[in-house]
């Protein structure tokens, strides 16, 4: 086989490879700054995101050009990308273990590797066949991680030893099955034909690919419409200024997949049940912003020709991002704190201060406003997302652990930086082209 062609094809997707090779050092960086090791839920989350990236690149590079690629070549290309993913997962786990754990290569190490591979394989499968990864990721990553974590924390060590092997094997089987599906998929396959990806993997391509998700008459999207209809009816009757009405509906419109009644209920229940670690307060707003970047720009240009001053529209948009992320943080906060009420959950609630993480969540929104929104390349945005979330969490953790600064002061600093970055972003925004 001509490996030179394979290499050239790989470099065509250079931004993704760049991310893939940048992520382990970034993760190392984040982990070395923070004292405690990342729990399994974080490794699971990273594995799921990695699977999503790998699926996207395989779709763009292998499936779409299927008529040009002989099965043997498709086999090589998909194996290459899948293997890079496995390699990175091993690096994640190694980075985590080298830091704090006494037994570096014990059975628990293999358990973490196995669990991560399981999640990776599961998401390779799920992300390829269902573009509704947003809905799946939040729930399943946490669910799977937590389900695996509970026996790790509570069951006898012998049982735990026994569990390592099947989880590892199931993970590998899922990965092999996915690769098999990709390699032997034919043009006639409906799933294959239904998913068309453009040449380059950018924001526009994600938008188009997920368009169907937003328009289907499903339970989930009907939830969007029901929520919007309810607010629309209320806002129409309210005797408030037009700008305020626009603010409410605009916020809802741009962030509907986070703010619909159904999602709120779903998130609340998930957070109550799964008790995620506090740094999800930073991670989720960043994901929200990532989603808003994809849809916000198009809608903003459309609204910019309507009778509202550009400055007011920007303020509305900014306020909308903060309002929706505060709403999300509030839901997460309630979800995290609710189990405290139930006695039996008391001992497994995180004992970390929560305030700096809440402001950390708002801080990543300002970072996204300032940096991510100006770049239309999904790969670079993805990298920045990781960098900003990782660095913010690491700095907060470091500050809390070393007690260099008290939590209230740290929250204050984050708030000041949030305001500062938002103002700089606003200044830059009103000078730039609105339409793309």
């Amino acid at each position, binding site marked *: 086989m001509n490996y030179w062609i394979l290499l050239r094809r790989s470099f065509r997707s250079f931004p993704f490879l760049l991310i893939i090779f940048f992520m382990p050092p970034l993760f190392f960086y984040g982990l070395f700054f923070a004292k405690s090791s990342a729990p399994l839920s974080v490794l699971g989350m990273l594995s799921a995101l990695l699977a999503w990236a790998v699926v996207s690149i395989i779709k763009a590079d292998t499936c779409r050009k299927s008529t040009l690629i002989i099965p043997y070549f498709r086999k090589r290309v998909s194996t290459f990308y899948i293997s890079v993913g496995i390699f990175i997962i091993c690096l994640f786990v190694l980075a985590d273990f080298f830091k704090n754990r006494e037994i570096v290569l014990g059975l628990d190490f293999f358990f973490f590797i196995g669990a991560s591979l399981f999640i990776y394989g599961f998401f390779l499968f799920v992300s390829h066949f269902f573009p509704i990864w947003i809905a799946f990721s939040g729930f399943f990553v946490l669910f799977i991680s937590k389900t695996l974590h509970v026996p790790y924390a509570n069951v006898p060590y012998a049982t735990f030893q026994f569990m390592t092997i099947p989880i590892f094997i199931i993970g590998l089987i899922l990965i092999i099955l996915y690769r098999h599906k990709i390699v032997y998929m034919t043009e006639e396959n409906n799933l294959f034909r239904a998913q068309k990806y453009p040449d380059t993997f950018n924001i526009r391509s994600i938008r188009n690919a997920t368009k169907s998700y937003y328009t289907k008459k499903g339970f989930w*999207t009907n939830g969007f*419409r029901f929520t*919007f209809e309810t607010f629309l009816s209320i806002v129409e009757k309210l005797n408030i200024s037009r700008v305020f009405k626009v603010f409410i509906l605009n916020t809802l419109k741009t962030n509907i997949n986070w703010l619909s009644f159904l999602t709120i209920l779903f998130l609340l229940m998930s957070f109550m049940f799964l008790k995620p670690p506090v740094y999800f307060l930073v991670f989720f707003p960043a994901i929200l912003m990532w989603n808003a970047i994809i849809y916000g720009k198009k809608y903003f240009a459309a609204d910019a020709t309507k009778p509202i001053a550009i400055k007011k529209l920007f303020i509305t948009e900014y306020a909308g991002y903060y309002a929706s992320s505060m709403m999300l943080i509030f839901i997460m906060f309630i979800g995290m704190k609710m189990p405290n009420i139930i006695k039996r959950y008391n001992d497994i609630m995180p004992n970390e201060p929560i305030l700096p993480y809440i402001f950390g969540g708002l801080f990543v929104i300002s970072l996204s406003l300032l940096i991510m929104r100006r770049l239309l390349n999904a790969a670079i945005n993805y990298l920045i997302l990781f960098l900003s979330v990782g660095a913010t969490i690491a700095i907060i953790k470091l500050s809390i652990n070393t007690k260099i600064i008290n939590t209230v002061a740290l929250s204050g600093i984050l708030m000041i930086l949030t305001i500062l970055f938002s103002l700089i972003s606003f200044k830059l925004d009103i000078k*730039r082209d609105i339409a793309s």
Partner: protein
Amino acid sequence: MGEIIISTKDLYKSFKKKEVLKGLNLNVNKGSIYGFLGKNGAGKTTAIKCLLGLFRQTDGNSNILGYGSGDLPEEAKARIGYIPQENDLVEWMKVSQLIRYTKIFYDRWDDAITEKLLKRFEISEKDIVGELSTGQAQRLAVVLTLSFDPDVLILDEPVASLDPEGRRNFLETILDVAKDGKRTILLSSHITSDVERIADTIGILKDGTIQVERPIEDLKDSVKRLRIVPRDGVIPEGINIPNLLDMKKEPNFIMATVHDYSEDAKHTLEANYKVNIDVFDLNLEDIFLSYHSNS
């Protein structure tokens, strides 16, 4: 000359090193239907986006309704309707929800117009926007734009995605809207037959500047195709045809297209080069092609 509603003066717009508009001068009179013609990539959309303040111009001025495009006040925007080339409607909403959402922005929204146009375009309010065909979505954009009764309509390739019936329907709607002569319409397109049917003024954009801007009848009177036949059967060397747009040499004659045609110039040419000249009228498409000819 009437009141100028839309104008640009020496408008420049660059994207990094690529200069798209190079001193664009455009004037649209009140009540006029202005056909803004240009090839794909000529800069029509860029010019329109500069006019609407969606792009910041690199240099020069652009105005709508007497206001600078860079900072259009709300009262000006409330009088401007814009239909972009690609629909930017919110896909997950129902048609009724999108109408109600858009209505919130406008004080002078007319539900009767909305209802009439939805019926005319056969769009159901219960439909989901993302499930509409491209043509239906474009028609919905027309409904949303005309429902607030704008004084200025800016249409960027609005019929490109419509079938013949849809195009006819759309053009009739535009003519309906424009019949009282109070509205100003800027219609960007490269489908010359549609523009010819409704526009009263034509501007042809090429290489980032307006090559010609005239009332359509003037333009048709001005641009002619000449069939130049030498009396002795030999095509004269170095023939100098004034105001030449394009020229094609055949074995026994020359076909040339000129602008600013005059009978005097024809007689001079006939006398100087000992040729007979037949003059032909051109339709807008031929005129457009002549302005873009390289021959």
